[in-house]
């Protein structure tokens, strides 16, 4: 992590982009964001109403039906003119509407999976597939263990053909860089197709 004072200060009209890191509960999303972010991941909240008119709306806040949902994010200042934010989405499926808000305008998404618990990331795969948002699947190898082959995981997740799938270590900066580069090349390919 770069120290705060060595940070390149962005210009007021810097272009910004976001990448979503999704996946089920406890698969290593926050760890992945922390590995490449120049700041320790920050946490913020959004208010949700049960009747939800959407997360951008405070209506109904006085009722009992309001809850908050936390998301965390990190930052990569590419240059004075460009800053990329990485968002770790809430792991619980019931917060899927939060993903909608987060993924609007996103460059793409990383669906992080734990090979021992593939099922907790099914919802994330469905979400990005149905919305046509380019994504890659990164298999977090907890403790360096590889419990399944990449092609077996791709089959089990029923991934659309051509979805890049790779093993990673969410704690390792170089490994996470590789995941992000794989995603960005995938997005680039979609953009130029």
């Amino acid at each position, binding site marked *: 992590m770069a120290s705060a004072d060595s940070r390149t200060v962005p210009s*007021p009209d810097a272009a910004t982009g976001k990448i979503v890191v999704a996946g089920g509960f406890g698969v290593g999303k926050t760890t992945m964001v922390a590995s490449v972010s120049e700041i320790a991941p920050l946490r913020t*909240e959004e208010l949700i109403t049960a009747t939800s008119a959407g997360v951008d709306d*405070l209506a109904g806040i006085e009722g009992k039906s309001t809850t908050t949902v936390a998301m965390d994010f990190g930052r*990569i200042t*590419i240059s004075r003119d460009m*800053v990329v*934010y990485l968002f770790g989405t809430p792991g619980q499926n019931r917060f899927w509407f939060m993903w909608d*808000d987060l993924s609007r305008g996103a*460059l793409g998404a990383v669906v992080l999976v734990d090979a021992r618990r593939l099922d907790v990331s099914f919802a994330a795969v469905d979400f990005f597939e149905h919305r046509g948002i380019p994504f890659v699947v990164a298999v977090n190898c907890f403790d360096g263990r590889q419990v399944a082959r990449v092609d077996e995981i791709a089959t089990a997740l029923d991934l659309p053909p051509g979805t890049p799938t790779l093993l990673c270590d969410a704690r390792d900066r170089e490994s996470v860089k590789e995941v992000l580069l794989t995603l960005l090349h995938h997005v680039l390919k979609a953009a130029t197709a």
Partner: protein
Amino acid sequence: MRHWSEDSWDAQQGGPIVRPYALTQGRTTPSRPDIELISMVSTVRLPGRTTRLQPEQLRALALCRTPTAVVEVAAHLALPVCVVKILLGDLLDHELIALSSPDASAATDVRFLQAVIDGIRRL
């Protein structure tokens, strides 16, 4: 209902839901639709003596002397994003901040994508 200024509400711990509502003086949507999670906010001038602002808005102005994204302002103020958007909308209306919103087509902008790729390689 307690007013926000009457307690030292620690947002890190969560808190009474009435406070954000009071902070926005009952408003539930921002005055501007174009304030997004990753819009860049920068302070352009300091408020005049007669401009009435909330302490949170003054803190946002101090923070955004270095251009800062909306979501980061929310994290630093420990307030929900939707509340912060409303507070920033006021600052925009007072022309105290400038807002630069993300290009919706960034994901298909080849030059943008290539620059991000080059930047991440250099990390």
